[in-house]
């Protein structure tokens, strides 16, 4: 784990309201795995850091993908190249990919694309055939970037690809990874009990101390998304108790 002052190096738009921000973080870039995240803080920012899955790695740089959902993400999106963020990571247990399976299906909804490019590259490096399934409300909200051998789009309004959810549009595969709203992950876990899903929670420290990011388990009790997760076997999570909607904006 590293704590690095990371200059922002660029920003690009990948969908309506959705942006990728790149930053210099060499030690994290060279050690991060798919599904792991960084916890970002900045001066004159909100009190707590904000967790983001690492989207891609490019040399010494890492990228995160985000939408403006509250005051913190608004500030982050307003930053210019050269502005510095404090970057803590890599954090969490990512997707565990092994040699053996022939096919993998990466199912994402909206911002759930975040961990998928790294997952696609790690799977491809293991010789696994990658199908990228991405869903959003409409074509304008689909992420314009994708990786893998085959791509399947799904939109709620049918403006591109299959009409309906990414989970419904996805083919079966030897391994399924999913990331997106918790409601979507519950549906993925229903269809593929062994799917590895990356959950979203409120998070405090990101390092296992504050116990704020509790994930309710079917077997009872809670564990920590930040250190035990954020990747879980879909059927291990008590989806009824995990909040399906996160309200981000700071109440002031």
């Amino acid at each position: 784990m590293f704590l690095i002052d990371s200059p922002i190096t660029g920003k690009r738009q990948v969908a309506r309201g959705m942006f990728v921000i790149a930053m210099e973080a060499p030690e994290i870039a060279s050690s991060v795995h798919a599904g792991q995240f960084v916890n970002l803080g900045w001066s004159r920012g909100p009190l707590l850091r904000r967790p983001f899955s690492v989207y891609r790695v490019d040399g010494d740089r890492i990228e995160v993908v985000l939408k403006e959902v509250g005051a913190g993400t608004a500030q982050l999106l307003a930053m210019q190249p050269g502005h510095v963020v404090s970057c803590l990571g890599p954090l969490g247990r990512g997707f565990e990919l092994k040699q053996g399976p022939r096919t993998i299906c990466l199912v994402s909804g909206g911002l759930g694309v975040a961990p998928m490019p790294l997952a696609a590259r790690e799977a491809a490096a293991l010789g696994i055939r990658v199908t990228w399934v991405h869903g959003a409300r409409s074509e304008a909200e689909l992420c314009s970037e994708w990786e893998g051998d085959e791509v399947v789009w799904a939109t709620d309004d049918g403006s591109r690809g299959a009409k309906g959810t990414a989970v419904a549009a996805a083919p079966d595969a030897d391994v399924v990874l999913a990331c997106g709203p918790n409601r979507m992950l519950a549906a993925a876990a229903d269809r593929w009990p062994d799917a590895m899903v990356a959950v979203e929670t409120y998070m405090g420290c990101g390092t296992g101390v504050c116990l704020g990011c509790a994930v309710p388990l079917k077997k009872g009790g809670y564990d920590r998304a930040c250190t035990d997760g954020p990747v879980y076997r879909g059927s291990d999570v008590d989806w009824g108790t995990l909040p399906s909607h996160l309200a981000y904006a700071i109440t002031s």
Partner: protein
Amino acid sequence: MTPDLSVAIGGLALRGPVMAASGTFGYGTEVPLLDRRALGAMVSKGIFLRPRAGTPPPRIAETPSGMLNAIGLQGPGVEALIRDYAPRWAEWDFPVLVNINGESASEYGELAARLDGVPGVAGFEINISCPNVEQGGLYFGNDPRAAAAVTEAVRKRTSLPVWVKLTPMVSDIGVIARAVEAAGADALCAINTFVGMSIDLNAYRPRLSFRTGGLSGPAIRPLAVHLAHQAARAVRIPVIGIGGIARPEDALEFLVAGCTAVQVGTATFVDPRAIAEVHDGIGAFLAARGFESLADLPRYLPRD
């Protein structure tokens, strides 16, 4: 010359005045990257006799310059603490105090008796101020007789240092402070979180599943400095200041206001190295002003 930052407090000699606050440092094994030489002491996450699952999510909500939490004292119970953590504490070069909790005075006493003499356990911080449990917690903290009864129950069962962590949710903290001092406390920790509430305007309900939570962070600092000062004026035993400390100057405010030491909490969530920065900054402040030791720092502490 490096100023002497050591302090004697509540039966313990500490190498520095900055400690890790309960619930923000786990069991001491979790926080990454911290330079441990800066730790005066550590207070463990609150423990009960039995394991506790804690509250359902959402458990935290950020607020302006602060955060609300309702973790519900999730923990493995005392036996797991003795088995999994105490042996590691026994090897560390700073003392570890256990934050103890119960639903009755006798449960606190039992917990102290079970932990007394366990290698690695250097003392107790009695938690009579957790706002996030249905039974006990804050109930004991806002009634002087109940607070004294819990303190006595623990005092009787251990010869180790006994500190008592006070709640700010009282009309006169001096009354509680004097009651637990008379009951045998070696030091006071002031303060625990304030009870707060935040509403999710999309869901038209509280943001926390527990409805309310404990407010911490810089938002509460001036309130905490005042209450720690009030407590320090009321008693002769040392007071450990807690509440929104993130920088050396924050800690120094508590020290000048009459505290003997401080605990850093929420700041560790933001920067795992916060404790070391506060510790080093206190030394730099004293050195820059020509003080040879923390004991020379001028205090503002008129006695009641």
